[in-house]
Every structure is written in structure tokens, then in C-alpha cells.
């Protein structure tokens, strides 16, 4: 497998890979997301307790789950970058972090908006909520560290280390509902045994999760491309490519 992956560590190959993958990710993300949201918002039955306000679940849960998933992806990229000294992986860290921060922010925001009708308050300092907030700060820390360095090479290595160290927070977020008695819902769909959610609500939710995952992937790929171009701007392959584009335009 490593033999097969290794060529993609080269920036120009990585760029080419991004270019091929991007449309697939983008199109399928849009399709699946559209299906999921329309199904969820328009056709799924209203909750017997919560009425229609539960429909925010189709935004909240995917973004919350993906905020963590994205962090894991970022940490994995950081790990690869540190251990195998792959520059592209370092760049991936810098590319992924802002996407993850936005997802986390959406999760927080939708959660707060949902909390108002459900718990009667926007915010409580309970473990799940706080740890999700901390996740946002971890993302912000990674971004701030990266931006503080003038030397981006140095900056992306440093932020990679930071991303790895922050991984401890992930299990805390996930298990917070079990370790402390909180207001927040316990595991509903991420239980392996039998999801405690009706399948008519579950399917659109799963679609939304998948769709948002693909969309996240697409955004990360897009940002990675930009990062590659910016960081490699003095390398011949970028120059050649830009030249080619110019000629095409003419």
C-alpha cells in the first residue's frame, strides 16, 4: 500500500490527485446532501415530543460528528507529515484546520439554537458542550500557530505537532455524555447495537452525514490545492502549470 501511496507525497502528484478527486467529491456531496436534507426536512415525520424543532438534527448531528472526524483526519495528516517527513501532509494540516473550525462552529451554533427550545437556555457549561467549545479552540490554536509563523514551512510543522497533541480531547468529547451526567443527549446513532432512533428519521440523517462528509472532503481538497500552489509557487511545476493556463486563456 505504501508503495502505491508514496508517489502522491510529491506535491505535483498530490495536486493532480486533488484535481481528479475534486469533481467526484463535489458532485456526489451535492446530490446526497440535497436528497438527505429534502427528505429530512420535508418528508420525515415530526418528532412526537419535539415537534418540528427536532429537524435541526439534520444539521447539528452531521456537523458535530464531522467536527471530530475532521480533527482526526487533520491529526492523521500531521502524524504522517511528522513521521515520514512529507511536506504535502503538513500542508494538508493547514488546509484542513479552518474547515474543521467552521464545522465545529456550526455544531455549536445549531446546538445552541436547538438548546433554546429544548433546555430553555442557549448555553450551559456541561461537559459535552464545553468540550466541543474546547475543540473549537484547539482548531483556532492550530490556525493561529500556523499564521503566526512567517516561515510557512516552520509554521506547518509546528501546527502539526499542536494538532497531534490536541487529539486527547476527542475521546473526552465523545464520552463526555457517559462520564458525566449532562443535559446533552447520549449516544443515539453511534451505538453499534441498535440505534435508538426511528429508521424514518435515521436514514435521512445518515444521508446528511455522508453528504456533509463528502462536502468537507471537497473543501479540504480545494484548500489543499490552494495551499500547494501558494507554498510551491517558486517551483518549476507550478510555473509551468500557470504558463499553460495562461496560454489556454489566450
Amino acid at each position, binding site marked *: 500500500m505504501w508503495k502505491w501511496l508514496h508517489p502522491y507525497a510529491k506535491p505535483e502528484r498530490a495536486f493532480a490527485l486533488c484535481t481528479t478527486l475534486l469533481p467526484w467529491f463535489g458532485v456526489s456531496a451535492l446530490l446526497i446532501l440535497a436528497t438527505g436534507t429534502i427528505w429530512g426536512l420535508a418528508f420525515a415525520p415530526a418528532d412526537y415530543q419535539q415537534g418540528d424543532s427536532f429537524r435541526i438534527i439534520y444539521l447539528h448531528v452531521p456537523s458535530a460528528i464531522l467536527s471530530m472526524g475532521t480533527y482526526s483526519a487533520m491529526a492523521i495528516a500531521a502524524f504522517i507529515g*511528522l513521521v515520514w517527513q512529507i511536506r504535502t501532509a503538513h500542508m494538508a494540516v493547514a488546509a484542513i484546520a479552518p474547515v474543521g473550525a467552521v464545522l465545529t462552529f456550526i455544531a455549536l451554533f445549531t446546538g445552541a439554537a436547538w438548546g433554546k427550545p429544548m433546555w430553555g437556555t442557549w448555553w450551559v457549561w456541561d*461537559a459535552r458542550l*464545553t*468540550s466541543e467549545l*474546547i*475543540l473549537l*479552540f*484547539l482548531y*483556532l*490554536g492550530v490556525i*493561529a*500557530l500556523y499564521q*503566526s*509563523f512567517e*516561515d510557512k514551512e*516552520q509554521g506547518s*510543522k*509546528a501546527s502539526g*505537532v*499542536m494538532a*497531534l*497533541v*490536541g487529539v*486527547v*480531547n476527542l475521546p*473526552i468529547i465523545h464520552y463526555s455524555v457517559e462520564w*458525566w451526567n449532562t443535559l446533552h443527549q447520549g449516544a443515539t446513532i453511534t451505538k453499534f447495537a441498535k440505534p435508538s432512533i426511528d429508521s424514518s428519521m435515521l436514514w435521512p440523517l445518515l444521508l446528511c452525514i455522508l453528504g456533509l462528509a463528502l462536502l468537507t472532503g471537497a473543501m479540504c481538497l480545494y484548500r489543499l490545492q490552494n495551499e500547494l500552489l501558494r507554498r510551491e509557487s517558486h517551483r518549476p511545476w507550478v510555473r509551468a502549470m500557470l504558463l499553460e493556463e495562461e496560454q489556454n486563456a489566450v
Partner: protein
Amino acid sequence: MTGRLAGVLRRELALAYRQKSELMQPIIFFVLVISLFPLGIGPGPQTLQKIGPGVIWVAALLSSLLGMERLFREDFNDGWLEQMMLSGLPLSLLVLAKVLAHWLTSVLPLLLISPLLALFLNLSEPMFWSLLLGLLLGTPLLSLVGATGVALTLGLQRGGVLLSLLLLPLFVPLLIFATSAVDAASMQLPYNGQLAIIGAMFLLALALTPMATAYALRISQS
């Protein structure tokens, strides 16, 4: 090799002794923060007891931030760090020695005055013991993780706020478990579980952060 590492330790201790004034700062902050709350909340022993452990922990977290910057900054500026990196010793071991020195000189004093503070905050005896044990296991973790953060921001000079942005989120899990241990103790429940988790985090940090710190230090040199 241990002899050589002991050299690092001795040097740090000698330096700390020279720069007493700078060491005082975290301690004063610690005392100030802790005395602030009884003043702010009023002397109700019930509330004080409730918030006491949390306050001590938060104060310990924050005051450890104060001295943290100094961990590598001076060595970086005067070139001692370069000499350490070329000493033929594994850098992560050197980092460990420095962290140990930092803990001994700027955290241990906090622990030493904590009985006094516990008294101040009306902590019951089991609460105090659980607090102290938590601090004993948890503060080295702070120093270890803090060292990584400092090393990461070393190339920047504008440590201060950025450093606390990086570190505070990392300290949160520790805070959660440590205070929940004291909570358990206050209800006469066993708190081995929480301590075990803190211990596990400490061991994990002990195994991993010296390497991360060493790596970050290398980055700062290029």
C-alpha cells in the same frame, strides 16, 4: 548519561535560585487568585468548600502559565539551546530534565503551600488529600504539555497570549478529572478511577511529549 542529565538539572536549579524574583511571580498569582474568591463570594463556608478545589486547580493551571515561557526562551536567546542540541545526548531526555527542573522550582512550591490554602477554603480532609494527589499527578502533566507549547512558540517571540491559547484547551481534560476526583472525595466516594485516568494521561504525556517538544525545538532552530 544520568550524570550528564543531572548536570542539566543542577544548572536549572542554580539558575532558579539566582532568579528567585521571577519564581515568586506564579506563587503570588496563585495566592492572589485563591484569596480573591473568598473575598468575592463572602465567607459562607459551604460555598467556599464547594468551589474550593475548582479554584485551586484553576489557579494552579493559570499560574503555571506564567512561568512557562521562561522554560526555553532564555536558552534559545543566549544559544545554550544550540549547545544542548549538539551535546550528543538525546534531546528528548534533555527536555525531560528541564521539565523536571521546572516542576521542582515553580510548581512544587505551589503544592507546598496548598495545605494552607485548603485551610483557607475550608476543605475537608478527604477532599484535601484527593486534591493533593490530583495535583501531584496532574501538575507534572501540565509541565510536560506546557513545555511542548513553549517549544512550539519559541520561534515567535510573542509567546504570551498565543501560548495560553494553545495550552489551556489541552489542560481542560485534566481539570475535569481532577475536580471530579475531589467531588467524589467530598461525598466519601472512592476516587481511584479519576486518579487512574490522570495517571494514565501523565504516563502518556511522559512517553510522548518529550519527543514532541524535542521536535518542536528542532523546528525552532531552522
